[in-house]
């Protein structure tokens, strides 16, 4: 294991973005030059071997996702590469740093991925509220075009790449990859039936890959430094470093690039500085709103896709939300379910009716009107929204914090019933 921090090491202390010149001085745009000499199959092969898994939350192996894209003379064109920069999962604030601090790193990652799938056009799908990211990306894109790194015959090669920035108009479903495709086509961000998979028929019916910003930012480094180097960045079987974060009542909320597989306890106590004076730790959501709660007994668990799953949650985006003893767990889950109910696209009954029903029940608990029978209803809604019962992953994700709260904080629910009010009011 090495303690290198490839994604953030070149970022400036004052938070300004690296210009193209500064990025190149730090070794930037060497990965894409190498990738252009390698050819698609070799790039994909190297990324597969690196064991890079998608950083958008699901952890799908990146190389094998690309392997389904048709290549060569008979493949349909234009093919598309999309950077998913929607970042609307509550509690998540990692892609913002990558775009604000080093936009060229993302562009180079998109160039590498585009070569791997022989894409002709790339989009950054950016949430509209990220004004600073938009300005900095726009400027970086202009610099890259002016340098001949985008457009026709990039870097003096025989291939071209167009790259555009799309600013979204705001809706959580835009982050779901097929919802994103509809949004980019100027439609409502409803999800699409799979198959056909986007690799075969995606944006405008053409082969498309959608990849998270952090996933893409890793690619130039993998190409530059190789598979073994990348694996050694990690403490675990999932390769690379990871952007981890913490928010809530900890001493130092923040974001840190660390070896993949750093333990939850180390993140909480060393990097976030532990709990603020006067508050106690109760639990945490390891990677955004749609992951199951973990508690004190899980602090030794390594934060990676495999290990967190083993204890019944998901690493998700890797940005933890900390619950303390002065915050009502029922109220927190009410806030989460209200978000999910609002953002449901309304297509499937379990999702739109189930989540709003759960939100109403949780609200009743907060007002002192909850009953033990309601707990069974909540449990039933969690099963109703399980994977397989709905069209996309929003609803199954939405009930993860709820089902785990019912398990770990049952006594707190019952206190609301007994005391006929929220004990934290």
């Amino acid at each position, binding site marked *: 294991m090495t303690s290198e921090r490839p994604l953030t090491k070149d970022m400036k202390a004052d938070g300004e973005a690296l210009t193209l010149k500064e990025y190149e001085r730090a070794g930037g745009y060497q990965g894409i030059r190498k990738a252009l000499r390698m050819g698609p199959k070799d790039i994909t092969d190297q990324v597969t071997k690196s064991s890079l898994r998608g950083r958008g939350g699901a952890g799908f192996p990146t190389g094998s996702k690309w392997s389904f894209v048709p290549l060569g003379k008979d493949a349909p064109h234009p093919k598309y590469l999309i950077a998913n920069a929607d970042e*609307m999962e509550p509690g998540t604030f990692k892609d913002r740093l990558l775009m604000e601090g080093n936009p060229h790193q993302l562009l180079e990652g998109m160039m590498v991925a585009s070569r791997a799938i022989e894409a002709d056009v790339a989009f950054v799908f950016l949430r509209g509220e990220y*004004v600073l990211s938009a300005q900095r990306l726009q400027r970086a894109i202009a610099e890259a075009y002016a340098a001949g790194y985008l457009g026709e015959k990039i870097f003096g090669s025989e291939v071209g790449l167009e790259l555009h920035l799309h600013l979204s108009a705001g809706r959580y479903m835009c982050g779901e990859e097929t919802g994103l495709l509809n*949004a980019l086509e100027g439609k409502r961000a409803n999800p699409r039936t799979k198959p056909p998979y986007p690799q075969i028929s995606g944006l405008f019916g053409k082969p498309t890959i959608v990849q998270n910003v952090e996933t893409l930012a890793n690619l130039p480094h993998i190409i530059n430094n190789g598979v073994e180097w990348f694996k050694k960045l990690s403490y675990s079987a999932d390769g690379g470093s990871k952007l981890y974060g913490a*928010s*809530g*009542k900890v001493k130092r909320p923040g974001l840190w690039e660390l070896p993949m597989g750093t333990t939850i306890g180390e993140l909480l106590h060393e990097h976030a500085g532990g709990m603020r004076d006067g508050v106690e730790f109760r639990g945490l959501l390891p990677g955004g709103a749609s992951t199951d709660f973990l508690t004190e007994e899980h602090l030794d668990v390594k934060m990676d896709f495999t290990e967190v799953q083993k204890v019944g949650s998901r690493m998700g985006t890797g940005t933890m939300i900390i619950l303390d003893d002065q915050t009502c767990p029922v109220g927190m889950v009410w806030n989460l379910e209200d*978000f999910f109910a609002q*953002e449901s696209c309304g297509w499937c009954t379990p999702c739109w009716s189930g989540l709003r029903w759960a939100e109403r029940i949780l609200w009743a608990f907060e007002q002192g009107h909850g009953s033990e029978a309601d707990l069974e209803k909540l449990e039933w809604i969690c099963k109703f929204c399980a994977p397989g019962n709905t069209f996309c992953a929003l609803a199954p994700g939405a009930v993860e914090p709820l089902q785990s709260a019912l398990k770990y904080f049952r006594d707190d629910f019952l206190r609301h019933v007994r005391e006929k009010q929220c004990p934290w009011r």
Partner: protein
Amino acid sequence: MLSSEERGEIEAEMLKYPNKQAACIDALKIVQRRRGWISDESIREIAEFLGISTDELDGVATFYNLIYRKPVGRHVILLCNSVSCWIMGYNRLRKRLCERLEIQLGETTADGRFTLLPIVCLGTCDHAPALMVDDDLHRDLSPDSAEQILERYR
């Protein structure tokens, strides 16, 4: 009628996509930036320009949080109500802003200066609670500091 500036900006966006409809969200944002919000008339004008039906465009416009189908004030406050901000004092912030502006969430002040809207996680949760006023992000807020910040927007 769309102004020539509006048409020019929308046409520039169209170049990114293989068909006109794909530019409709960009078009809504361009028109909203100039007119403040999207009226029925704006919907008709944009739909005609892009060659799509008004129903279709309205369906898109109402789906997205950042497209305003009702008039808004000179400044729009987007107050994050997601989980980290909720833990870090969203309720106190909301209460103070509502008292100070004498409106509820979703409403516009009598003088037309501010509209207060809830927004989902602004992606700055390590600096919660947070809000945006127009294009500016403000973080690590207390009810007092939030109130002071509003003074900067006339």
